[in-house]
């Protein structure tokens, strides 16, 4: 009843071309932001912030990155984990070399390195399509993983081959390292994710985003309409890898605190792909929903047997979790290929016409 667009007339194309043309949607965004920026830091427990919100936001950003490639441009990639790694290692090297530069600037600029690497491995996409691309992105994944192990310069010749986050301050507040408070880290991650989501949304709704979708929907027609596949595909690879790189850098600097190569292995590529598929291909909201779902599901699954007093061991829960995720992937692909995002849209649609069925 309250979610109605009736009576909201657009008097300019500018208003109609806005990203959220409906008033209530704009209000909802403001509400979510208030919850995220004010309520959660104020009420959330440390565990909730560090183990749920921070990873959720970071994975959402990575999912947005992958969604740009898979959902918007139609190029499948299994190299997400490695691209995240490039961002993380780049950031680590930069802060070792320039310890005085603000770490947040370095986090953002580490995306440039992953974007460059992403473009190199995106080059084959000009000649090959579909799951042939899976192999080239797997090549990126395994080759980069090997580099993270075999190039000791990348981890400053650390004995155990791990990168350990040094303590850094920004504006006089400790933001990285074990002494940084969860709330500080959360707020920085949140600010970066919100800003980058806004930018992603702008790009997608503009000329460049349209050229990606043209390539996705009908690459030949797009080419005949003057879209150069080289530009469109490589820009998608670059932007996508940029997002993944920043997500990877944040993962190490604001969440894990230390990382080995296994934090960027192929399983992460799968995990992020699942978030995109379950959340909804070609949807930013879906990226958040998918990340929330995949990340929070196991936590809830673990809590259920406890709450109802069943004694199921941790391993069994983990196995069941795998089965459920696998099953859900198939379920969503069969029943709702547009993922949670579509369910979300349907719910909004129902709300719009409530109390009438349609």
């Amino acid at each position, binding site marked *: 009843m309250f979610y109605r667009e009736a009576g909201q007339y657009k008097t300019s194309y500018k208003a109609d071309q806005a990203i959220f043309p409906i008033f209530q949607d704009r209000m909802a965004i403001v509400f979510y932001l208030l919850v995220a920026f004010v309520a959660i830091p104020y009420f959330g427990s440390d565990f909730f912030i560090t*183990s749920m919100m921070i990873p959720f936001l970071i994975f959402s950003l990575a999912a947005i990155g992958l969604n740009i490639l898979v959902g918007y441009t139609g190029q499948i990639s299994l190299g997400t984990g490695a691209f995240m790694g490039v961002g993380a290692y780049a950031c680590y090297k930069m802060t070792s070399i320039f310890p005085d530069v603000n770490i947040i600037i370095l986090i953002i600029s580490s995306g440039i390195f992953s974007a460059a690497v992403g473009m190199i491995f995106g080059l084959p996409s000009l000649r090959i399509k579909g799951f042939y691309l899976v192999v080239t992105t797997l090549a990126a994944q395994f080759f980069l993983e090997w580099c993270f*192990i075999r190039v000791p310069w990348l981890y400053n010749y650390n004995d155990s081959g791990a990168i350990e986050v040094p303590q850094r301050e920004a504006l006089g507040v400790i933001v990285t390292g074990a002494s940084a408070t969860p709330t500080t880290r959360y707020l920085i991650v949140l600010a970066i994710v919100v800003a980058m989501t806004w930018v992603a949304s702008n790009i997608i709704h503009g000329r460049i985003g349209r050229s990606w979708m043209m390539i996705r929907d009908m690459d030949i027609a797009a080419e005949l309409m003057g879209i150069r596949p080289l530009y469109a595909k490589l820009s998608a690879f670059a932007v996508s890898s940029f997002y993944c790189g920043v997500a990877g850098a944040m993962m190490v600097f604001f969440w*894990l605190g230390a990382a080995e190569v296994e934090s960027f292995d192929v399983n992460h590529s799968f995990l992020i792909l699942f978030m995109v598929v379950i959340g909804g291909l070609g949807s930013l909201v879906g990226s958040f929903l998918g990340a*929330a779902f995949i990340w929070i599901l196991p936590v809830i699954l673990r809590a259920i047997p406890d709450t109802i007093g069943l004694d199921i061991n941790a*391993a069994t829960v983990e196995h069941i979790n795998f089965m459920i995720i696998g099953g859900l992937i198939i379920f969503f692909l069969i029943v709702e290929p547009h993922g949670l995002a579509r369910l979300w849209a349907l719910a909004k649609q129902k709300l719009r016409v409530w109390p009438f069925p349609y």
Partner: protein
Amino acid sequence: MFKKLILGTAAVAMLSGAQMMSASAEDMHYVPSLSYRTGPFAGGGIPVANGFSDYMNMLNARDGGIGGVKIVVEECETGYNSQKGVECYESTKGKGALVYNPMSTGITLQLVPKAPVDEIPVLSMGYGLSATAIGEKFPWGFNYPTTYWNQLSSILKYIDSKGGIKGKKIGFIYLDVGYGKEPIPLLDKLATSMGFTTAKFPVGVKEMQSQSSHWLNVRKERPDWMIMWGWGAMNSTAIKEAAKIKYPLDHFIGNWWSGADADLRPVGEVGKGYVAANFSGIGTDFPALQDVLKHVVDAGKSQVKDKSLVGDVLYNRGLFNAVIVAEAIAAAQKATGKKAITGADMRVGLETFDLSAARLKELGLEGFAAPVKASCSDHEGAGSVFLQQWNGSAWEKISDAIAPMNDVVRPLLEEAADKYTADKPDWKTQSC
């Protein structure tokens, strides 16, 4: 829906926060066990986790816990994955956790910097960051009874005792992750001082089960001895491949994570002669293990699939880990005079317990392991290792305890500790 999700999870989190408060009450020793019963390394993770929780359950059943307070072991599945490990840590630390046993070098690396902040000690028994042995630099990190570096020096001493090491070529095959790479600096250092050459063969996690080219390289390099830092499925594959190229297995020495029954049982007769290091007893011929069988396994309170798995190498390793934790809890109770202790008290316990030969006998574990004496500056105990050999169906102890080269290792550990703390301005140290 999104909103509901967020609010729902927020509610769950708040509730569990409330639970945490009540859970940290005075009636238990809460010890999280970051186990891995899934994933590629589950073969090693399962017996370790079983040994750990079975011993604690035995103490509960036989003695009513430690100092009259029951022990609660909560397992959290990590799958040997650092991210899940951190998540487990975050989800359990608020419940009054006394000590963390990460069971993985990768997870240890994540937890070492968090330990002083949350004031919960980390005990990585025979794995993890070797440098945490330096108590002055790492007040909250422990790796009793000994470190990888000590172990390597003991193994090299053994080789030296078998016909000299000078001028020999030592092959080092290792799992290509933090764990496997950890001993390399020492190996290189000792190569110059002891006068041997090295050849290194990294095995990536993905190649664990197809090592034929690594062993072709071994054949090409012709090392006189082989040392292995392997884990999980890598071990049995390596031993099979070694046998295939007819490498003399009695010149092939695994570290203490490469010498489990689970590794050698699939190899069987082919693996006869293979040598591995160990620091915890073999078999069930110890009163304490009989108690475990009686109070836990026979009572159906254990997760072991088969009774015969009790007493195997990794089961006993996990059990020994539990022994150290239990001793430290007891020591902490003694030192603070409190029955229920905190993580900070536990740290004191970990610096004061004394697992002497007499104490081991008292515990029903005579000869199970070398004595370990805790101290403020020495967080590893500098324990010795012994070597065991596979006879085709079981392990046999073939050497006495071999003391490590403390004089060489300690300065290196100190150097590594300095390097670790160098870029951490606020790192908390202590003076002993």
